[in-house]
């Protein structure tokens, strides 16, 4: 008994929550309890890939957790050193494979910054449209899988309907459903086929309705609220210390969105808000995904109104791209946080060093802190809300 009390104190469990975490078994002198090591993953549906978590538990309280990653490590950074800049683009598709368009853009953007390229207007708009559609597709999948993690089966099947429409549209514009390789340094590979923009326009009101439906279905659900409200809470200071970005940072009430803070591309031409949370818990993280989809739709709508009717989609780019000697870093607001590329060039057509600032990788570090002192049942709820994609974590 005393030992458990001490452990909980050491873990910093607040006094009013002690009762909740106290192990009933310890009150019984006939029952012996001991620490236990529980292995979660690497093959576990709730880890969203191959992610292993070693959890030390006592009764149902998590004493410590240790993430083990690297199962999907392909050495993209090393591979890139032997590839020309255009050849690296398909490799970025395989980082965060749920938001490949954003990865494409992040790399192209860094190289374009280094070269000081001008991007044709129509290409910029096409990029913004596909990037925001991609953000919606990625957020949709988060909502589906998160609810699935928490035991709600149907949302997972629902979200694939809208996602399928987006994926079909991507298929029409670039011929691929998952790994697009659509962006090029200086623009995009293909112009939108006839009727494509109308299709996107028709999608917007449909999606708005669906977001409303999800809001009605999920947000007020009492079981869902009980599972997520006040779970996995942290404040802005902690988030900044750990370098969190994206929704993981904004859920604490801190309005930090690189589309506004460092307006790349043509984001300064659009009106949109940055939704922020209030408590920094799992529920806020879920709800921000819904709200951000609405803002993305707003951007898509405005982009559709402003896009020029015709024009080139690829700027004047030399056949062999040589980045001037130097080092370059630029980040964009990816679906999961700040996605950045750091390139060191020695003036050749291949990077001397390419480093990827992976938002999931950085965001995941807080996990052991969040899990300590929690009930084992909250493990999946907290892990799911961090929203990781292992292809990106391991790169």
């Amino acid at each position: 008994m005393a030992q458990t009390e001490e452990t909980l104190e050491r873990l910093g469990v607040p006094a009013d929550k002690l009762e909740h975490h106290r192990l009933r078994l310890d009150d019984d002198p006939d029952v012996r309890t001991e620490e236990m090591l529980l292995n979660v993953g690497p093959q576990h549906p709730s880890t969203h890939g191959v992610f292993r978590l070693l959890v030390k538990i006592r009764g149902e309280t998590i004493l410590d957790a240790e993430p083990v990653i690297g199962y999907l490590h392909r050495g993209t950074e090393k591979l890139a050193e032997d590839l020309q800049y255009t050849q690296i683009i398909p490799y970025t598709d395989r980082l965060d494979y749920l938001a490949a368009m954003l990865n494409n853009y992040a790399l192209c953007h860094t190289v374009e910054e280094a070269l000081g390229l001008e991007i044709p207007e129509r290409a910029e708009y096409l990029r913004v449209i596909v990037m925001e559609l991609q953000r919606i597709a990625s957020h949709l999948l988060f909502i589906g899988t998160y609810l699935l993690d928490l035991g709600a089966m149907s949302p997972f099947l629902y979200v694939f309907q809208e996602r399928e429409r987006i994926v079909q549209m991507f298929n029409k514009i670039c011929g691929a459903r998952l790994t697009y390789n659509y962006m090029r340094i200086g623009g995009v590979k293909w112009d939108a086929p006839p009727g494509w923009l109308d299709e996107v326009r028709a999608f917007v009101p449909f999606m708005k309705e669906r977001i409303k439906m999800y809001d009605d279905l999920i947000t007020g659900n009492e079981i869902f609220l009980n599972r997520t409200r006040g779970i996995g809470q942290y404040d802005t200071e902690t988030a900044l210390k750990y370098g969190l970005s994206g929704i993981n940072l904004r859920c604490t009430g801190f309005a930090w969105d690189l589309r506004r803070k460092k307006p790349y591309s043509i984001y300064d031409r659009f009106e949109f808000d940055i939704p922020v949370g209030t408590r920094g818990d799992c529920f806020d993280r879920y709800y921000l995904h819904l709200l951000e989809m609405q803002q993305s739709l707003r951007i898509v709508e405005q982009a559709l109104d402003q896009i020029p009717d015709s024009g080139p989609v690829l700027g004047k780019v030399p056949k062999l791209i040589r980045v001037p000697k130097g080092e370059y870093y630029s980040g964009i607001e990816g679906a999961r946080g700040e996605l950045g590329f750091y390139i060191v060039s020695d003036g050749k057509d291949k990077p001397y060093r390419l480093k990827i600032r992976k938002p999931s990788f950085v965001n995941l570090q807080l996990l052991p802190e969040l899990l300590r002192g929690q009930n084992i049942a909250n493990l999946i709820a907290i892990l799911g809300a961090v929203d990781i994609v292992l292809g990106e974590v391991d790169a």
Partner: protein
Amino acid sequence: MSEEERKAETTAPQAPSAASAANRAAGAGESGAKAEAKPAAAKAQAAKAAPPDPRVEAAKAVAEQIKQVLVREFGEAAVEETGVAHRTPMVRVRKQDWPKAVEFLRTHPDWKLNYAECMAGTDYPDYIEIVLYVQSTELGHFVCLKTRTDRDPAEVPSLVASHPGLNWEEREIYDLLGVRFTGHPDLRRIMMWEGFKGHPLRKDYREWD
């Protein structure tokens, strides 16, 4: 843009983008004025007489200011080099002063570089360079800090005490580049498995011996 102007803008609640645009000008400054700026830039390029980029000049000035602050605290030898990394102010700090300088800038009231964005290591022929892109969420500064170490033994003091978020970044650099971070609480391989030989991101790494 002068230091005062930037600060004045940062304090205004609705001007975060303008504030950060000042020294992290990557695409920010020109976006509004893109249409006007384009022909001018094209002409300048055609004439091959590129005038000094004002954003680069501003970044150099900021780097110089940081140098002054650091020199006052740690002495002349602490700062080895200042310059720009593209358009970002760059300051290279002596290895011994690395964690102290980062912590000092994190808490310094004029800089408050509290948000570490990206940490990378690069293997050059004669040294390994550690790069930290760090920014101030409050004041809008965006700075590139660097330090260098020999390739063998490669050893740099850890920054985890100031920025816990760099824990895994340092582990990754240790794993792939073989830089030992002294004072790191948990320095183990992170991507490769325990028992793996060598550090793959080193330029002289060979898979088969």
